[in-house]
């Protein structure tokens, strides 16, 4: 079964998840929105790049927990259906067409 968030994945993603989790703090969000590099100092260049590009799939594959990604998504005003569409490799519009109530997002 793919993408199970187990201890191996959690260890691999710990640094990135710690940053994503820090966005539950208002002052970190404010700093990140104003000057992202200052807020991302603990991350590797590769990780910073994924975050800057909001590459949800790359972050997931790197070990990010979906629930930590949600913190970044809320900070940047991205909805869960947008993230899910990205994981599926399709546009939001294409994903919403597969849903029963596309307006309930």
């Amino acid at each position, binding site marked *: *079964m*793919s*993408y*199970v*968030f*187990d*201890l191996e994945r*959690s260890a691999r993603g*710990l640094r990135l*998840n*710690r940053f994503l*989790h820090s*966005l*539950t*703090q*208002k002052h970190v*969000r404010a700093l990140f929105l104003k000057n992202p590099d200052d807020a991302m100092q603990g991350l590797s260049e590769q990780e910073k790049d994924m975050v800057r590009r909001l590459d949800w799939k790359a972050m*997931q594959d790197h070990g990010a*927990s*979906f*629930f*930590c990604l*949600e*913190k*970044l*998504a*809320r*900070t940047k005003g991205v909805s*869960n*259906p947008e*993230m*899910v569409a990205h*994981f*599926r*490799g399709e546009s939001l519009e294409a*994903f919403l067409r*597969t*849903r*029963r*109530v*596309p*307006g*309930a*997002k």
Partner: protein
Amino acid sequence: MAKIIGGIGTSHVPTIAMAFDKGKNEDPDWKPLFKGYQPVARWLQEKKPDVLFFCFNDHATTFFFDHYPTFALGVSDEYRIADEGLGQRPIPPLKGDAALSRHIAASLVDDEFDLTVFQDLPLDHGLHSPLTMMWPSKPDWPGRVVPLVVNVLQHPLPKPSRCYKLGKAIRKAIESYPQDLTVAMVGTGGLSHQMIGERAGFNDEKWDLEFLELIERDPERLAGMSIQDFMRLGGNEGAEVIMWLIMRGALRPDARKVHQNYYLPMTTAMAVALFE
């Protein structure tokens, strides 16, 4: 003596809280969801339980993977509302029942469930997204909550059978509390959904409806399944329905489902069920 008067199974999708906070009661996209909670809200208003015992999970909000507990019981008299990236929801802090929590912690450890306990921590939507659909928060909450946080995020997760047994031990703990108060059990999560990988967006209504039957008539069968079974049938994240088994384990075996609502608008099947 304290007594369990019934149980509620409910989804805890964050958009339920969003729809509530934005007042979407009459929005045609959300009305079927709000309608589905009305009988539960009425039941709570009539029965007036003193305490709701909530089995739910934190979403890497209050607890982080540097130290992630399998079962963690809140033992405070108050719980703040957590900031999940959008600031706090406009609802008052939750009222706890520290004395009851302490009794339950002691009873469960005596029963060989070696819990983590926590105090003075904020709680996320896993608890209060369904709560606001069932309990008025204005002018203040009508009762108290006892929160039990369950690890359904980082594998290995607790076995379904362990959850069911924990529910039975919680019943014993509550029924041995000397004070006369009434408790309703709440189990949250699900139903089918997967948020990650190529299978993101997966649902299975047929399995969901079967689950809603089995949780009433044959919870032992659900308890005998593996986490892998639940992930295959209900999606990776859908395996969190094992928290309904804690609620069900705390009810009498002959408890009957008196209400059910099922709504699958977007990525997660939203269900609510009431048991007496």
